[in-house]
């Protein structure tokens, strides 16, 4: 049995140690907001937070995540009110939407350490998240907007 803390809840899961965290989250816990894209940390669709840092869950063995705080897109906010989520809606960022759980988790991790990122900061932090629809310009705008929401007192 492996013990995990995800979105503030404790879980015991019966999986092999080498199972990627992604599959435990999706299959065992039923949290399907975290997406599977490439399985080799090349696309960023599986991004979630481990102890506040953006991590590619498809290459993170579940055994490396025990005892840590794991947050998925479902746990970023209870009601879609995280500044990044609000900004994503206001800027109509998603198209097909498949990559955006990962995009938002990367953006939230960036904003938590850099509340007013420059374009260059954004490009650097987001370069590992691929969007096949090509929404990059709106992602950048949304991150600036999220920073502005935070500056105006919107919670992180």
């Amino acid at each position: 049995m492996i013990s995990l803390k995800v979105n503030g809840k404790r879980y015991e899961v019966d999986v092999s140690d080498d199972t990627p965290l992604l599959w435990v989250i999706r299959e065992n816990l039923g949290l399907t907001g975290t997406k599977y894209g490439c399985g080799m940390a090349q696309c960023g669709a599986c991004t979630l937070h481990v102890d506040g840092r953006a991590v590619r869950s498809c290459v993170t063995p579940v055994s490396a995540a025990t005892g840590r705080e794991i947050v998925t897109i479902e746990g970023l906010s209870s009601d879609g009110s995280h500044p990044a989520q609000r900004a994503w809606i206001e800027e109509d960022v998603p198209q097909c939407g498949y990559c955006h759980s990962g995009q938002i988790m990367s953006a939230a991790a960036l904003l938590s350490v850099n509340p007013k990122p420059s374009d260059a900061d954004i490009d650097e932090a987001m370069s590992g998240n691929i969007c096949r629809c090509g929404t990059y310009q709106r992602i950048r705008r949304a991150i600036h907007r999220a920073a502005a929401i935070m500056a105006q007192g919107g919670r992180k």
Partner: protein
Amino acid sequence: MREIVNFSRRAFLKTGALIGGGLVLGIVGPANGTRAYAATVPEAPFIPEAFVRIGTDGAITIIVNKSEMGQGVYTSLPMLVAEELECNWSKIRVEAAPVDPVYNHTVFGMQMTGGSTSVPTEWERMRKVGAAAREMLVMAAADTWKVQKEACRAENGVVYHGTKKFTYGQLATKASGMPVPANVQLKDPSLFKIIGKPTHRIDSPEKVNGRAVFGIDVTAPGTMIVLIAHCPVFGGKAKSFSSEKARAVPGVKDVVQIASGIAVVGDNFWSAYKGRNALEVVWDEGPLAGLSTSGMRKEYAALVQNPGIAARKEGDPEKALGTAAKTLTAEYEVPFLAHAAMEPLNCFVDLRAGSCEIWTGTQSQTADRDAAAQIAGLKPEAVKLHTAFLGGGFGRRANPHSDFVSQSVQVAKAVKKPGYCQHNCVNFL
């Protein structure tokens, strides 16, 4: 310019705005407004075959016959309906259409999404649907008040006559019994309030909180996960294989051969993945074994020396070039663009004696359903196909051979166990 559309009831039926004798403005409470492909409800009921439902709670459900793959069709087609329906945009929600001829592409004659055709080909039909529904609501109100319908007006989800008013929700039940209007008058474009105006996408909220259900997210208790080893060369086949090591992987339930490869069936992804890696397959790479990028480039370079087809010709370019003081020559090349979507191709199949239910993100519902029926040995009507969100389409999910759906049904058939199969084509663009 005011557009008057005349069409008989029969013609209206033929346009597919409704079947079975009534625009569905039925009694639909909030509990029934769930998506047909909700992951937790694999036995979800077959939804009414029409394009709009107005609930007694005032909720307006637009049934969209096109696949949402990022192009925004779950917003654009409802905008067309809502413009003529004169409803409150915030009351709109969307359902994916089931497979039925009523939802066929108005030009291609089958249910499918592609070629940037959705708005142009539904432009008139969706507006007529909205206009007809509005008319029936107005008729219901006028009949209740015993006034002429021409003296009533519909605005923002309410029908007015003088100081009297009814909401669409209050009128929904009665309106469903009203005759379908023989003529509907479509708005003059100068009066558009929604069409042509920046409108937020309907599907953004569920795409930023992880709740949007893509094909790959559909599951049910006891689902088996299937990964297929395909030949590295397109069109190749397995010559021979050994499944002994794959079967020894904990969690691997079965290994079956299908036409296009070797399928490993596991009780979770990681088992199926490790099982597939443990397969020993000898491939017959087939007729395309010699195909390569450099070879194709050479072929294209040779072909470009041939005279091409003139798309447009003005003046006499040969003469102009011959007398020009200076000429420039340049070669342009663009790389091959793979129709690769972010969401790996996948298909969820529930195959039982006499029925087959499929959830997938596809651009090609009719063909996929028919292919599944043929493989399963069922009539097409016995196959229910539910369209989930597509994690990108790019044409890859409109495959004339219905490849990923066909493979999934082949595996479900070969496994011969009751239960669900979620097939993820991880190495198969």
